[in-house]
């Protein structure tokens, strides 16, 4: 996969961010000199939400900047955490005096850079707190690893914390809502074909023609198992099986189900997977309250998908249903 639709590998992020704001010029804008997308009406008199991370996961995170979701998104280089100065600029741009919540995916680099930015903001008297999303069940969560990665479940954190902030929640309440999502959301992904970072000559990992990788990360981090390609239903059985065994579900529980394409997967295949996911959940007496199928947290042109379940209660359902102008999450 040597071909890419780019101009210059060094300029992919800035050119993409410029394109993103041109799509919704009445709603969002780019900060000068930084790859930061902010709401045009920011700062608002509410808790502000800032997220971000390496690029290559579009529409995450700039695609979620809007009413009822994020106030700002910081785009790092491809698969590379943004730098503290950029995160700091984002915080300053959207802080409306009610505090800022940073939503960080659990990667060593992201945590270090966002923490440095939080230190800088606090030194300027801005109230900042952060949550770390770690929904990937493929990683053993132990003292001997960096812990679970933050993947597609992050989008639910954006939606629900965003709704809480829009409803006038205090910083501590918005953080609690975000943490409730983190406690109840689980994801597992897989890949059929790898992706290639525009500035690199080779794919980030290799898969033989007849192989797939279960439990893959959104940067191509190795998963739990490399196996011969299986049928769609069997793949869903594995992914959803891991998710269901990681969190206790009982008959009658309600969930939000997300079937997420990694960037190079036809929607046809995602719907085939979605069908199987519904069958499994129905068998277990788990009700799909809301279903999301499409691309939410991608990995460049990687072919594959992830399945996310968010266990819902009354509060989470209300916040999930709250209005937003982000079409993907309506």
């Amino acid at each position, binding site marked *: 996969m040597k071909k890419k639709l780019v101009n210059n590998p060094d300029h992919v992020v800035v050119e993409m961010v410029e394109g993103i704001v041109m799509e919704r010029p009445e709603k969002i804008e780019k900060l000068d000199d930084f790859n930061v997308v902010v709401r045009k009406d920011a700062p608002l008199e509410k808790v502000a939400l800032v997220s971000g991370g*390496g690029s290559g996961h579009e529409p995450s995170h700039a695609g979620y900047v809007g009413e009822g979701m994020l106030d700002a998104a910081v785009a*790092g*280089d*491809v*698969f*590379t*955490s*943004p*730098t*503290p*100065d*950029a995160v700091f600029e984002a915080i300053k741009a959207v802080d409306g005096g009610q505090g800022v919540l940073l939503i960080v995916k659990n*990667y*060593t*680099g992201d945590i*270090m*850079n966002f923490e*440095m930015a939080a230190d800088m903001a606090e030194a300027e008297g801005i109230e900042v707190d952060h949550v770390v999303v770690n929904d990937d069940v493929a*990683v*053993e969560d132990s003292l*001997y*690893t*960096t812990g679970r*990665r933050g993947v597609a479940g992050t989008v639910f954190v954006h939606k629900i914390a965003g709704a809480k902030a829009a409803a006038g929640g205090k910083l501590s309440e918005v953080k609690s809502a975000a943490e409730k999502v983190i406690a109840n959301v689980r994801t597992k992904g897989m890949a059929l074909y790898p992706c290639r*970072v525009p*500035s*690199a000559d*080779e794919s*980030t*990992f290799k898969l033989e023609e007849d192989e797939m990788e279960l439990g893959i*990360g959104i*940067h*191509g*981090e*190795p998963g739990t198992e490399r196996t011969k390609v299986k049928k769609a239903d069997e793949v869903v059985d594995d992914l959803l099986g891991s998710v269901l065994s990681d969190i206790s579900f009982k008959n009658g529980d309600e969930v939000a189900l997300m079937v997420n394409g990694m960037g190079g997967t036809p929607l046809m295949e995602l719907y085939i997977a979605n069908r199987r996911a519904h069958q499994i959940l129905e068998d277990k007496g788990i009700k799909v309250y809301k279903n999301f199928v499409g691309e939410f947290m991608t990995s460049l042109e990687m072919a594959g998908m992830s399945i996310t379940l968010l266990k819902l209660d009354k509060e989470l359902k209300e916040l999930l249903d709250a209005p937003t102008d982000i079409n993907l999450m309506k």
Partner: protein
Amino acid sequence: MTEKIKDIFMKISDVIIENKKYLTELDSAIGDGDHGINMSRGFKKVKEKLSSNDYEKNSDLVKTVAMTLISTVGGAAGPLYGTAFLNVSKVIPEAEFDIDAAIEIGESAINGIQKRGKAEQGEKTMLDAIMPAVESLRESKEKNLELKDALEECKKAAEEGMKATIPMQATKGRASYLGERSKGHQDPGATSSYLIIKTIVDEINK
């Protein structure tokens, strides 16, 4: 002496840029394959900054290097090297350089990296090259070695430390996701740290 420090950082930048592909290959094996890309982007900017400015004090020059890395490298390497050099800028002598200064510089770099990364020696990180290097400086001081010889020993210790990461299992950073599978690969962070130490020693001793 500021000219000399500037020369050292210009040379470090060249070495990192030359090794972009090598570092990226090492990172592809156990990480996400961008260490060389990120480091070379940062050090290109360091070169640009240093060649377009004059510095009266070593501390200002090193601080510029630190802030440039923090704002351009990204990933984990940016905050780690940035914080290391920021700490170094606080202790680097303005006049004569001796083994005590070398030890203090090394220790301040380690403190910065540990503060950010919360890692210990033996976790397959850049510390596995840097900590043995600084330990060797302390031993050379005990033995009353000449600075020149002490620095050569320091370089050797960094290289051995880097190679010692090959059989290690990673418990920090992205490589830790691999668990057992991280064994058998040299750590890219330890490698870039070795390249930096080697270049500093070679420039001082040349």
